[in-house]
């Protein structure tokens, strides 16, 4: 072998080494929880950190593990990708079975490959595009499923206001006449308002009604990770929209929230709070997803910056004027945990320490090794503000070696009996968490 070929071999080896080094996480997730998360320097990768367990579902009677003082029970199985839950005052539970519309065009070689890798987890399985109603049988205590509404278009958010059910499909809010007690909806429904639905990179439309039932707040995710589809497709996206229930008129209520997948009212102060999925591919420990109060007219940074004034150089052109006014979110819940469900607990059947705090359904990471998320966690609130670290409440969604995925929590609800209900879109189940007897 001559000198030349030696040099070349070294060059080739360097390329191989560079492509193989999907960086491992360096920080303990606990350092990225709370008001002031540790934020390492952003990195550029040839291949971003990636770890995706294979979706296998729950075998036999297997179930998630719960924290001390709690018990867990499966109340429904065999669903088609259950994503969101709504508990009705009469005790019935509505389950939204859904997944993305699959309309995002493949416009880069990377999308071709990444789509295949991420699909392994079972998170990309086809959704039922329907709503199933679960009713508890008084005699047996078993929950009986009834198909309430079918042929929806990637529904996610769901709210019930005064004799009407509002369903946020990926492209519009539909209104159906509905009284609790009904087992089926015959009303073909009317469109209340259209929602941004080009590309649908982030397709979920989370939704919560104002306490007086006059407004709907809709979380609309960005059309990209970090504006790589052009800023023109981000119109009215990465935002919380406010929709007038009487007229369907809407406006941008808050912006710069990359993917606000859960909206809820904090019970003590009555302020709007959101969980937000932050940007990927600048490190296993960047950027922490967060829980924040949402201020009217507030701008939270995306895509130009994160956690206030931490500028993201991947956006051209930069906007220092917007970065300057970016609000720092209230509370970090660790990197890449993918929060998709938020619930402020106001019931009394779980141990008292949970009252008034926020449960978060963490769907789990792909852009981090080791895995993070894949659990239901809890953040304590004191005087309307989050405090202390994130606690793990429901865990055991993946195997110890991180290779198999049994389930992944998404939407949360509080049952009429005070139970914590969890939609699991990999286990295709609904779980009910109660105080242990």
């Amino acid at each position, binding site marked *: 072998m001559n000198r030349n070929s030696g040099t070349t071999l070294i*060059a080739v080896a360097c*390329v191989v080494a560079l*492509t193989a080094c999907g960086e491992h996480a360096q920080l303990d997730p606990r350092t990225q929880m709370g008001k002031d998360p540790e934020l390492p320097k952003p990195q550029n990768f040839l*291949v971003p950190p990636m770890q995706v367990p294979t979706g296998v579902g729950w075998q036999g009677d297997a179930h998630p593990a719960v924290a001390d003082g709690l018990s867990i029970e499966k109340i429904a199985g065999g669903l088609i990708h259950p994503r969101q839950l709504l508990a009705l005052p009469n005790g019935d539970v509505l389950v939204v079975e859904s997944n993305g519309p699959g309309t995002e065009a493949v416009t*880069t*070689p990377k999308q071709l490959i990444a789509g295949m890798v991420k699909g392994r987890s079972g998170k990309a399985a086809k959704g039922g595009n329907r709503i199933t109603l679960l009713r508890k049988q008084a005699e047996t205590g078993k929950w009986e499923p009834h198909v309430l509404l079918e042929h929806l278009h990637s529904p996610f958010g769901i709210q019930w206001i005064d004799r009407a059910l509002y369903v946020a499909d990926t492209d519009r809010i539909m209104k159906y006449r509905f009284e609790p007690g009904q087992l089926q909806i015959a009303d073909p429904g009317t469109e209340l308002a259209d929602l941004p639905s080009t590309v649908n990179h982030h397709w979920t439309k989370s939704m919560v009604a104002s306490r007086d039932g006059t407004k709907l707040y809709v979380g609309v995710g960005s059309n990209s990770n970090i504006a*790589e589809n052009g800023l023109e497709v981000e119109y009215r996206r990465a935002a919380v929209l406010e929709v007038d229930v009487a007229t369907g008129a809407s406006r941008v209520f808050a912006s710069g929230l990359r993917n606000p997948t859960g909206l809820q009212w904090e019970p003590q102060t009555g302020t709007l709070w959101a969980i937000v999925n932050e940007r990927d*591919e*600048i490190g296993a420990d960047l950027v922490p997803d967060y829980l924040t109060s949402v201020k009217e007219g507030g701008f939270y940074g995306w895509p130009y910056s994160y956690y206030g004034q931490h500028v993201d*150089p991947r956006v051209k052109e930069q906007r220092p004027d917007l970065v300057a006014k970016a609000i720092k979110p209230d509370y970090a819940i660790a990197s890449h945990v993918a929060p998709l469900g938020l619930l402020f607990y106001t019931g009394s059947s779980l141990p008292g320490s949970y009252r008034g705090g926020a449960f978060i359904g963490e769907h789990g990471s792909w852009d981090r090794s080791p895995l993070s998320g894949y659990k239901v966690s809890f953040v304590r609130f004191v005087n309307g503000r989050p405090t202390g670290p994130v606690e793990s409440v429901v865990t055991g969604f993946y195997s110890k070696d991180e290779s198999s995925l049994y389930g992944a929590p998404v939407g949360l609800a509080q049952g009429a009996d005070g139970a914590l209900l969890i939609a699991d879109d990999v286990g295709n189940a609904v779980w009910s968490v109660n105080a242990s007897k």
Partner: protein
Amino acid sequence: MRQEVKTPRSQAAAVAFGVLDPIPYGFFVGALLFDAIYANSGEILWIKAAAWLIAIGLLFAVLPRLINLVQVWFPARGRRAAAEMAGFWLNLLAIAAAITNAFVHSRDAYGAMPEGLWLSGLTIVLLVLAKVLPALPQATARDRA
């Protein structure tokens, strides 16, 4: 040029090489142009198009590079020319640069810059050298000797 015994097999390979070898070169030149436009304009169209040009250019490079590998390392008869050897290594380095560049272009938006532009430039410089060196007077003269 050195005299070769033209077997039907090597002749077919030479024709296939002549047909296929310019394809990746064209793709990589296109990628360099598009990268330069994106670096200045920030218009997403150009960086996405450049990413496809690099990926497809690499696919088209596989066959001509294999043919060249056989031609250079297992010549039908006679000694290898130094210029052919240099061409082989320069092409290999260009492919290594393009592979790295394909990964750099998988970054989102402006995260691919400026490295993507540099690597597109480096790929072309190496490919141009691989074409120019064998054509230089002294290389031709040495080959004749």
